[in-house]
């Protein structure tokens, strides 16, 4: 992967230099090779961290048979972007409110990163993130999917997720009756 060297700032060149020396090569199901910084891979993916620690990294490309090249490219892209991003104040101060399910809102770049993905690419990336044990990426992509359901009518959601309504009118009515409060303002 190309890492943006344009800025020319000392901090960044140092990071790039490190990445050049210290990378792992990953191989997608269709045989394409991707390079990613070892540090970022180990920090962001529990599975890769385990493989690096366990020495099961292949210099000629570690096989990831479950992940297609498009998804793997996104994974690697995410790792690189993550390595270059400075944690924002929002991330640091997130501990201020009590939250039983601690989730840090996606940062601006993370939002853009998932927004530009096609439906398939997003779902593939979710599966890849899940497979690789990339908690943050999984969180961000799942957040995106949940947003695709928020504030939409059932028909709109069916359209988004390509779901075929197989209920009869009576069945639908029954469900609505059972949990009426959830359909109150329809």
């Amino acid at each position, binding site marked *: 992967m190309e890492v943006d060297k344009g800025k020319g700032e000392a901090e960044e060149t140092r990071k790039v230099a490190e990445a050049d020396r210290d990378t792992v090569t990953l191989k997608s199901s269709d045989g394409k090779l991707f390079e990613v910084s070892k540090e970022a891979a180990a920090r962001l993916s529990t599975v890769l961290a385990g493989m690096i620690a366990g020495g099961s990294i292949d210099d000629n490309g570690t096989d990831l048979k479950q992940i297609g090249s498009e998804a793997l490219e996104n994974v690697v892209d995410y790792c690189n972007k993550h390595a270059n991003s400075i944690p924002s104040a929002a991330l640091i101060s997130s501990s201020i409110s009590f939250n039983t399910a601690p989730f840090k809102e996606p940062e601006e770049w993370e939002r853009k990163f998932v927004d530009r993905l096609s439906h398939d690419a997003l779902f593939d990336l979710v599966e890849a993130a899940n497979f690789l044990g990339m908690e943050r990426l999984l969180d961000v992509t*799942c957040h995106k999917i949940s947003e695709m359901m928020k504030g939409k009518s059932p028909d709109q959601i069916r359209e988004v*997720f*390509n779901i075929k309504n197989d209920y009869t009118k009576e069945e639908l009515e029954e469900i609505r009756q059972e949990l009426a409060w959830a359909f109150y303002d329809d």
Partner: protein
Amino acid sequence: MAMLPKLRAVSTAAHGTDTNMRRGRRYYGDADCVIFYSYDLPGPGVTGGLLRLGYGAERIGKAWRRFTDASGDDESMPIGDKVLVAVDVVVGVTNIVVGACDFVIGACDFAQYARGALGRFRGKYLSSIEDRITTRVKRSYLCSRKRICRRGKYDVQFEDLPEDVQCLIFSKLELKEAVRSSVLSSKWANSWMISSKLRFDGSKMYGENFSRRYHIQRFIDDVDRVLKLQHGKVIETLEVKVEFGRILAVLLDNCVSFAAASSTKNLALDLVPKNYFGNTERYIFPFELLDRETMSRLQQIQLSFVSFKLPSEFSGFPELKRLDLCLLQVTSKDLQNMLSGCSKLEWLSISRCDLEDELIVDCPLSHLLYLRIARCKMTKIELHAAKLRTFIYNGTQLPVHTIQSQELKDVEISVSNSIAFGSALTALPKTLASRVQNLTLQVPLRLKSAKLLENSSKFSQLKHLKLVLFLLDQHPEDFDNILSLASFLRAAPLIEELEIHFNVSGRGNAETGRLRNLPKCPYKHLRNICISGFKGFQGQAELLAHAVENAPALEILTIDTASKNGNPLSQNVEPLGADIARSCLEWRISPKTKLRIDDSISEGLHQEWVLVES
């Protein structure tokens, strides 16, 4: 030697997962699937392995259920489905094998489990029909999963996602939205129940017009109904947010019992009414409904507008990590005992709890990292928290609590009563241990003189100082003495970033005469200065000039003429700030410094960039 802690972590992980697996089986009948309820398993490699192991097992389980549903008769199942089942099995087995391998590397005690799991699958499904499986596998192995799963518009469907991922997605939705998904199609009918989080929020369930009088009975019935539906499931997080009324007590008791029965780890009861003044009746937290096992399972508790009395044989919450108490009715003795029983506490917030007394916790809270005390009337707080990193305080006076933590790095203090600058400057470094790196002060400081104040105690590690100041018209001398704030810089030899946000009520005097000087005093590390609410008062100009002149390493200087807090009172000051800033920087600023002046008054959001090239 390094292996030891790793092994220990792995063993804990394996142990925890094993429990979850057993639980999973109990609730899911004989379906041999493994569901993971937590993402916080320690041991990096192990988690991934566990998840894949679970995913694999689940996948085989599902595939096999589909196969047996078709009563095993080849003709009753369309070719496409057979291939799908076979592929699911292949993917599942691969996952199990890969997952199990990770374990063998990671930990010996887990390998045993993996073998058991494989054995069970073989025993249960594969022995009788093994040949058929092999042929199926062979025939379909070359087909890529993508093409097989293609059923129309998209390759991957929501319901193809692993159960734990679906669970994560549903947990990000409001309960209402999750429930509404049941009308999408029959496949979705019960999908929302997968979520291990239940959040009953009155205003979210019935809209913003939720009124206690009209909706409370419906709320009680509807919550009850959902609890019944979810009966017997593991619910990790249970939250109830509704304005308290006596009529709710039974329901809330039910919720607590439900939490105890559902292995809940996070429990939140937020019962604050809109107008709580004079409202003395609170929900009495039913400690008697929590058995010892539940108490040792709870990791997060939030109680707002609750009263409690500790039972005599209170044994503490040994695993509790986060505790948020608000408007709590409790004696200081009970609160002390409660906190003493939470030795693993990492995050503690106590707000608007009026204990007219001292709070002294004898038992060391050695894991406590975050402490917030807001608007409490306690006279004194004493905690032994040697690892505390963050301290947030909000009160009428400066805190008198001594925080003896060598790790304390971030401190935020908001005080409502005005305080003489000199006394704040002497008191603060003493109260807070001297290691503080980031300090935010929001205080109505009274600035009595323009001189530098010498103080013996210093902020020896302070790197980032943020001051939020309120200047009032009735104290005109404060405007003139702004320069004395430089004493803060003097007291912090390592300071790198300075942020000052002025909030001015009234017009002040935006004309500058001859700027007064302070003795030279280099702030060698100061790289970044940001001043908002810069109206061009003499004192502001003097402080700016002084800081810039004495900061040889200054990289970024940002001046904003508008107040950060958007105080409307302050917006009527004439837009001289930018001009005055520019004129007083003219020969003082180094060419290496990047200067940015936001002049938001004159032209809305117009921003002006002045870049001085070297």
